[in-house]
């Protein structure tokens, strides 16, 4: 149904997900994730967007009793990241995440960005400093913080903290970056900054972003997926979804008649 010349980075195949209380939050979700593209997940609150996103980095494994069925296959190595034999830590080394609310560690700006490197046993101070600088530049935060790298991250503004979290996720050169409503706690200017940032980041990696903001989805994403009650209702390139959706529900949601 979509452009086939772009290489696939990952795809979810017949993905079902059950929370520990037995609630099935995802129902047979099939969706491609194209390399160096931004895919937006939209849909009404509670439809399973965050649940789907958090399958990609196995965040659900942190809580006992959650269960996956089906798979998310990463390319080019064809690893099913949900397979029982695959270590969730390995998956998180390849796929990083930015959360809805900025969640910096109570450490310095530098330590926050360097933490992923620390976890990867990087000991070389030069390498770490270079990587931190590169990540902060990549997150468009460098100019604002270069003179105060040893300040506590909590002293930054909300928008700066969110960019810091992006830098932290970026410093480890992930293949895929997940964003769960990354701008919902930010003002329009900080939001614009982050959208611009995402458009630049896609040159390096693949992005999956959850958003409630239709304009944002239309502005930044290449592909859009509309979810409803745990199912993927419609998927396509963003222009098509926003101008000629095939399903009535999608159109109603996008135009604000429902949701």
């Amino acid at each position: 149904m979509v452009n086939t010349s772009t290489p696939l980075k990952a795809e979810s195949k017949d993905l079902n997900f059950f929370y520990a209380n037995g609630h099935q939050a995802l129902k047979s979700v099939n969706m491609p994730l194209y390399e160096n593209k931004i895919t937006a997940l939209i849909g009404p609150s509670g439809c399973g967007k965050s649940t789907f996103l958090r399958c990609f980095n196995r965040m659900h494994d942190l809580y006992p009793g959650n269960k996956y069925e089906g798979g998310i296959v990463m390319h080019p190595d064809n690893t099913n990241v949900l397979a029982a034999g695959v270590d969730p830590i390995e998956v998180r080394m390849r796929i990083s995440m930015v959360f809805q609310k900025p969640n910096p560690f109570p450490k310095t700006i530098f330590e926050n960005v360097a933490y992923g490197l620390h976890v990867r046993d990087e000991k070389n101070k030069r390498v770490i400093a270079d990587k931190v600088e590169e990540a902060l530049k990549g997150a468009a935060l460098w100019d604002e913080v270069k003179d105060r790298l040893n300040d506590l991250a909590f002293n930054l503004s909300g928008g700066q903290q969110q960019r810091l979290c992006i830098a932290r996720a970026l410093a480890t050169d992930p293949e895929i970056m997940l964003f769960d409503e990354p701008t919902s706690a930010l003002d329009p200017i900080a939001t614009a900054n982050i959208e611009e940032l995402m458009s630049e980041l896609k040159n390096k990696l693949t992005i999956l972003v959850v958003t409630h903001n239709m304009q944002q989805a239309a502005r930044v994403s290449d592909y859009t997926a509309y979810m409803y009650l745990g199912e993927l209702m419609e998927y396509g390139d963003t222009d098509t979804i926003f101008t000629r959706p095939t399903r009535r529900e999608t159109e109603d949601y996008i135009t604000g008649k429902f949701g």
Partner: protein
Amino acid sequence: MALHDSQIAGALTKASVLENLGAVRAMIRRHKRNDIVFAGIGLLALMLGLLTLLTLFIDLVMDGYPRFNLQFLSEFPSRRAGSAGLLSAWVGSALIMIVTFLTAVPVGVAAGVYLEEYAPKNWFSDLIEINVSNLAGVPSIIYGLLALGLFVYGLDLGQSILTAGLTLGLLILPIVIVSTREAIRGIPVAIREAAYAVGATKWQVVSDHVVKYSQGGILTGVIIGMSRAIGETAPIITIGALTFIAFLPPSPISDVAPYLNFEWLSSSFTVLPIQMFNWLSRPDHAFHINAAATGAIIIMLTLLMNGTAIYLRYQIRKNIKW
């Protein structure tokens, strides 16, 4: 509260607004009376506790006043009340506190971290949980009996500083475990998830984040536990502390390499509350002055330790906002 009559009809007249305002103000005054009544009762309850302690403390200070001098701290106990001092008792207490600290902190923190982060949640961990809380309520003399059997006879450690330190360490272990767990539970899920999301293992999350951010709470628990331990008498008597000691244990620091010396661990000892008890049980009133002075010193020590705990927690929490 009454709706405006006129509101139902539509427009608000000035008269109806004023009338309604009067009624609202009367209601607020009525509600606020409860605040005043409770504030009074609460203050009274607080004062009852505080005043009792204060009276006791002032009483001790006034009785013991003649002995508040450096000589009291630098003299051994003696048959003459006027020249008897606390030297062996405070040195004993201090050395025992070192052993207590060194046992209770690593064991308590490790147990707390394990229970909170690693232990599977099932009936067995629930059972352990209940027992840890129960341990905090076990009378301290029971710990003394346990220590007598285990440390003194079982492990043959004798009636030593080591035995006393281990016993008190055991005694405050539940406090350290509980405060460790509470401090850990205060760490927001978002911070943990952030650490896991960059690929950290459980141990990296625990050592880089969980333990670091709960230091303030753990330290508070440790100091509060120690301030309880320093006044404990019953278990120490049970394991056989002497009541009259006119010598010091060997110094822990020596002037030849390796500069540390562990003979003091097996030395016999006395502690502040036992010294106080000893003086108190003498018929000669002059010794009661010494006892009062010792009591005042123990209370001051406890207050000082709790004050330090509050200060340290504040200092550590200052850099952590969530």
